[in-house]
């Protein structure tokens, strides 16, 4: 909704961009204020802001794809395992342990991982559209299958000796921003443009809002659903590649710890509706930052790890509550 409404009003660009995300922007600002007051010296330091962006990037990118699936009326619970698969695929093809100097150039390996991600998304889309499975079930099933494929194919072993030209991605910066965060920003803009300005993007809204109406209007449900889940697969794959670069190794369990839930939480905190047809890229972007800011700031102020995670859970609930109740007025 947030985004929906914004585009028509003739206001300035900033107010256009941020209309509808007001409540969560407030939460974000509140968090920043709290942490700045307590430990501003550390929290607001350039280093920490870089860290914050770097550590949000993977979830931020996954959440972009997730938002598309949510708008389209479903979820992608295979996102985390797709991250893992992409990480292992890119490791396998570049590792010096598998072949001297890697099987293929880094760029090609990344491409292969992205294609695998797209393929996973495609299968999800087909199961959902042609199989008529609820997205929840289709993607849980796929999650299990992908995770176990990783274990089978790569024998549940860590793949080491990745080329530094690859792992350096996680260390470098462009314009003072970590490369990973930069990729995330670029993908966010691409996703925003796609959702707002391409027929495909609009079809996602139409299908999520009312699939039957969309079908009667001649929108191909199959193309739209496959497209949305493929987009999520590709985003997860990119997230997986970056995460792998950051970890410096292909770790089979990469992406297994609640990555899906965090991506969903980011989208929903950002105003996406689990019943479909509603969601915004800017909201998701802010949502992802909020969740990571709590963790980042919480650790800086030396909070107990369990209490901190508990607050993350509470903030998810509160943000959505806040959004619902301010949205309806």
């Amino acid at each position, binding site marked *: *909704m947030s985004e*929906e*409404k914004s*585009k*028509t009003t003739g206001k300035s660009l900033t107010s256009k961009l941020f209309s509808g995300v007001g409540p969560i922007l407030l939460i974000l600002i509140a968090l920043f204020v709290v942490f700045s007051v307590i430990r501003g010296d550390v929290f607001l330091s350039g280093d920490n802001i870089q860290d914050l962006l770097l550590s949000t990037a993977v979830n931020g990118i996954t959440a972009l794809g997730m938002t598309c699936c949510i708008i389209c009326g479903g979820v992608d619970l295979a996102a985390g395992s797709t991250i893992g698969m992409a990480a292992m695929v890119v490791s396998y093809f570049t590792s010096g342990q598998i072949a001297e100097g890697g099987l293929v150039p880094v760029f090609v390996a990344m491409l292969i991982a992205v294609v695998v991600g797209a393929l996973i998304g495609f299968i999800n889309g087909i199961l959902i559209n042609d199989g008529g499975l609820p997205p929840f079930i289709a993607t849980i099933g796929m999650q299990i299958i992908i995770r176990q494929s990783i274990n089978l194919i790569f024998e549940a072993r860590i793949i080491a000796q990745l080329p530094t030209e690859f792992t350096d991605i996680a260390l470098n910066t462009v314009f003072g921003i970590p490369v990973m965060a930069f990729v995330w920003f670029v993908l966010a803009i691409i996703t925003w*443009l796609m959702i*707002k*300005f*391409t*027929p495909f*993007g*609009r*079809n996602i*809204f*139409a299908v*999520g*809002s*009312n699939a*039957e*109406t*969309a*079908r*009667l*209007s*001649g*929108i*191909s449900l199959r193309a739209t659903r496959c497209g949305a889940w493929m987009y999520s697969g590709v985003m997860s794959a990119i997230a997986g590649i970056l995460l792998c670069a950051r970890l410096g190794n292909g770790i089979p369990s990469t992406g297994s710890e609640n990555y899906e839930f965090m991506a969903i939480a980011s989208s929903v905190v950002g105003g996406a509706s689990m019943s479909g*047809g*509603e969601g915004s890229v800017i909201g998701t972007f802010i949502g992802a930052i909020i969740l990571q800011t709590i963790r980042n700031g919480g650790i800086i102020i030396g909070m107990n790890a369990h209490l901190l995670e508990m607050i993350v859970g509470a903030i998810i609930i509160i943000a959505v509550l806040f959004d619902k109740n301010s949205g309806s007025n």
Partner: protein
Amino acid sequence: MGIESNPIIRLNNIVKEFPGVRALKGVTFDVRPGEIHALVGENGAGKSTLIKCMMGVHEPTSGEIYLNGVQQRVKDPQQARELGLGAVYQDVNLAQSLTVGENFFIGNLPKTKWGTVNWKYIYKEAQKTLDELKINVDAKDTVRHLTIGQQEMVCIARTVHEKAKVIIFDEPTALLANEEVGILFDLIHRIKDMGVGIIYISHRLEEIFQICDRVTVLKDGAYVETLNVKDTNQDDLVKLMVGRDLTNMYDIEHFPKGECALKVENLTSKGVFENISFEAYKGQILGMFGLVGAGRTEICKAIFGADKFDSGKVFINGKEEHIKNPRSAMKKGVALLPEDRKKEGLCLGLSVDFNTNMASYDLISKCCWINLKKEHERTRHYIKEMETKTPSIKQLCKNLSGGNQQKVVIGKWLCRDADVMIFDEPTVGVDVGAKAEIYKLIEQLTRQGKCIILISSYLPEIMGLADEMMVISEGKLMGTLDRSEFMKDGKLDEERALRLASGISE
């Protein structure tokens, strides 16, 4: 008028079977350019199914479709659209979270030279069509924020905008008030003059005589006859549809005023309705008339406890009651048949049996234990009483035709045996036969001394039935007319009611 010209579309011997139901048994039908061809029949006769076959929503089990003499297989709605077929469906909504303009172009969004969506063009074009049709809706509004009536108009405007060669209207006036019906008819005439073939489905027979050229009658999925409208009359048509004569269906018995069952004092919900006061009596039918958006639904929902209101008092049987929610209203003997049966009246995915009993399980259970035998008995009883067409009591409501769905909702409330029954547009989408039955039912309820509040946007109905008629305009009570005031010498004085409804006070 090109009545004698070749048909644009011809359906030949169409058969459609659903599991357990043979919805169409060989229907033949054609439309010529520039004609308005009515399709009539009882609820469940197969009208909607026929047009869905035409539009590629359903694949016919057998039969052929010819367009301009060439046989075509319409495999999906997209193709139907490319072939120049457009439809305003009875039961398909717009994409609620998209804007009006976007809904115009959904599935076929215009692009700029960079391949992105051309928003400017979308809003300009959509607004142009809306303005041309005098529909007071902003193309940039989100559909969710429109009333049902407005959404309906948007649907029609969208089809007009697509410049289809054949346009199907499936009960377009069901949710419109008189004024809007007038606009719609003007519109249909204009489209017709452009040489478009129009298929018009309605349960309001007088409309057919107002605007249609030919009429085809379906009964139980079978083709009965096609007639020129000017060669027939309403009674003959009814006989073809129902298989028996129906004399004036509004001619029900009226009963003397009983005690005051419901009294409302200064009911106000800011911005929706203000200072509404009225009394309703046992054995009486209180009509509530107004244009779409007048706020009648909201008033009744407030009385029923379904909506909050800001101030005012509600008395039931002389006692002031503080009704917090529908449950407490039901306990005090108030029932409400909501206007939007799909969203508020039925659980579409559940059975007829379930829907009939869902408001009154407490009445047929002991110590939290439902008497299943009673449950089925009641369902069968009301199916029989209202002649609901359903293969079994286990049929899912979504597989029933619109009119039969409405009968299920009525059955649900009859199970509760309330003292005050509010009927919000009870005959929308209901065929003449069933309408007559509903009116008889209302008569029977008043005979039992129940108090009926009847909301309708359909003037003949409300004037025909009501003992007293409230006219609401923009949330204000414009006046209350007694039957003697709007029935002059056995004739209806429509003008006065319409004037009040338009907000012109006396």
